[in-house]
């Protein structure tokens, strides 16, 4: 992503870079934290908006019934596990995942162990027997520009603080 940093002139810029040194990673993770927060808020709202249906007592044959909705238990598991994954730092590069991430784990629903991530995926993409509700894809798409703006403004502010310190 292109990032524009406002500075007054070349002298400012070289001073800024000299001062930044090994604190570049701190700036990157601080900025990413703000951006990821914006996306995570949108994802939380998205998870809350999932429509769920009644709990089914017996699993019907998938090809004979209309598509089902996620059960309240499935929705609760997905809502509870929506968030930001650990930040992964690698030599000046910082990245993370937002949504129902790899460490979401499993839940027991109706005596069966289900991966929360797979439930979220089945809701977001749909299956041949579950209604598709692309809430996470929509949230990611809608929050993208707000997240980018949050990252840029935070990075600018952190650069300024470092230069003025």
């Amino acid at each position, binding site marked *: 992503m292109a990032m524009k940093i406002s500075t007054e002139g070349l002298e400012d810029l070289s001073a800024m870079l000299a001062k930044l040194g090994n604190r570049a990673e701190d700036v990157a993770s601080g900025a990413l934290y703000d951006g990821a927060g914006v996306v995570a808020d949108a994802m939380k709202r998205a998870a809350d908006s999932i429509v769920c249906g009644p709990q089914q007592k017996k699993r019907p044959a*998938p*090809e004979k019934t209309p*598509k089902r909705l996620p059960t309240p238990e499935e929705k609760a598991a997905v809502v509870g596990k929506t968030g930001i994954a650990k930040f992964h730092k690698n030599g000046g590069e910082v990245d993370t995942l937002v949504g129902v991430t790899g460490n979401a784990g499993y839940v027991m629903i109706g005596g069966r162990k289900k991966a929360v991530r797979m439930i979220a*995926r089945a809701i977001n*993409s*749909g*299956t*041949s*027997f579950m209604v*598709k509700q*692309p809430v996470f*894809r*929509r949230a990611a*798409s809608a929050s993208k520009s707000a997240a980018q703006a949050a990252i840029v403004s935070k990075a600018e502010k952190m650069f300024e603080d470092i230069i003025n310190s």
Partner: protein
Amino acid sequence: MTKFDQLVSQLKNISGIEIAEYEWRTRPNGDFGTVQKDFEIDSDNGSDGKQDRAFEGSVDIFTHGKQMLTVAAVESVLEDVCSGSWYLNSEQYEHETGLIHREFVFQLTDEEVPDPEESGG
């Protein structure tokens, strides 16, 4: 017809798979799929209201087995109608049904395109 209509009609013409707009009432026995608009992603404010609206949608195909020819046909329709703005969002095997589910996500504007049936006479 809009670009979305063009996409739907071209997908329905693919042999070896039956693709419906939005949802099946009675699911076919063979390979099947659906195509739908999911949500609006962008638009401009014009003097007559909204202009240049763009939508994100998806094509879901469910196949018995890999069916690479069908997949290639769907991909070529997407490439033809949406140019580069589509991707394979997920591919997964359903244990319960034995089907392979592929989800393609595309982005389209609502611009009008000539109807091949009308213009071709």
